């Protein structure tokens, strides 16, 4: 299973790592209890500072997506209903939709894309 990092992506690397793992969990490719590589391994493979990966793992831990077990590494946490409010979740969606509208996309085209993405992302949802 591969995590993809793009150097020309506007997001910082730690965000790409966190988002990539979140996506794999959402798709069901990383299931509950799956061990994740140690911070040191990912940082060395990517050739980045240890902190970059540590920050990404901390974000995943804060979101309740991974559990850090001292001595045995990190594993994917059991899927629990999100505790985020609708307002919190709506803000990034609105930002993304605004970008599409400003880029001149029609409503149908945006809906079509959102449906397709939802199909991909929602594969792993129970």
């Amino acid at each position, binding site marked *: 299973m*591969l*995590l*993809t990092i793009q*150097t020309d992506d506007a997001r910082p690397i730690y965000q790409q790592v966190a988002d990539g793992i979140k996506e794999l969990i959402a798709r069901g490719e990383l299931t509950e209890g799956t061990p994740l*590589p140690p911070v040191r*391994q990912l*940082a060395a493979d990517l050739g980045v500072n240890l902190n970059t990966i540590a920050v990404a793992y901390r974000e995943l831990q804060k979101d309740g997506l991974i559990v850090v077990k001292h001595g045995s*590494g990190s594993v994917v946490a059991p899927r629990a209903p999100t505790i985020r409010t609708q307002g919190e979740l709506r803000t990034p969606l609105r930002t993304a939709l605004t970008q599409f509208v400003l880029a001149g996309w029609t409503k149908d085209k945006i809906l079509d894309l959102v449906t397709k993405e939802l199909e991909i992302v929602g594969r792993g949802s129970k």
Partner: protein
Amino acid sequence: MTASQLQHYAVLVYVLFWVSRIRGVVRRGKQPYLRGPNWFFNVPVPAGFYEGPGRQILRGYWLRMAIPCVLDIPAIAMLLTGHTSWLPWVIVALVPIIHGNHMYNVNIAERQAWQFAKPEEAQATVTSTVGLSLTPRRLKDYTNWPLEWVMALATVAAGFVLVHIYRAAPEEHSIRAVFWVPAFLLYLQLGALLVKRVIVTWRAPVPMAQTAEHMATRDAMRKYYLLMCDWNRMVITAGIVFRPVLLSASKAESELLIKIWLGVWLALSVAGTVWIEIRRKQLAEMGVKARPVRMPDLSGQAGMTKWPVCYQPELPMLVLQGDRGYSLNLAHTIAYLGAVYLIGMALLLMLARVGH
């Protein structure tokens, strides 16, 4: 077996080592154009490169291949003066030097060739997308547990027998005569485990083009080197087990046993060398299928490799690679362990001489 016979044996091993090196020299000599005439190692070069600037770069590469031969000068002196018992130490020193020299040599040659690379092709080798495996890579994931158990039990059993031999007749054998060789072998075993750890943790990013081919090549290479380590560890364990067998045999029996041991060791070394050459050829063919790519430098390693060693505690890589070659990161745990290991080895060798 007499000291003279052992010296003859050391000469034979050195000669065989030289024969096996010839094959390595031929293989490394051909390595620059393994991908075809439009490539110099992993550098895409224009037509006629080998007749033009490539000729000098190639010559320089071939000449640098001979650097480890400097160590053959003391070896020849040993042969001429009859101090052949030191020859195995020359072999022990030559093996890492040959590999290290090759690594640096390829890096220097590639850096020289990049100046003449085809611009459009050179641009195509740069990737902006890096794939990272999410499968944990730990030493235990690459451990053959039944083999480890056999080696551990054999070592412990040999240890018990050695203690028994020493306690049964302490006046016959000194502590050093009984325990030094197994202790030294055990220490070598520890070193092989350290090397295994380096191989397992070696960084392995893959590009998103031809990902399967790149991953298969990396994994095959890793498994090959780990297998080499395990083979050496098995030989070391056999040496530990052989020690009590040798000590409990009569003088006549022990001479025969040493001859059998050396004969088997020699036969296995020859067979192993042949297998290594076949496997290396297969791995080279496998590697050629994946188009070379240059990974992006996300931590600015290029500026940190001014010297052969550096101190970068925030970076988890043992070796940094930049515009000026390789640099060993002294802040890495393995660098510390390696230094401690070498100090321990020096102490152990000094112990062998104490009270000799």
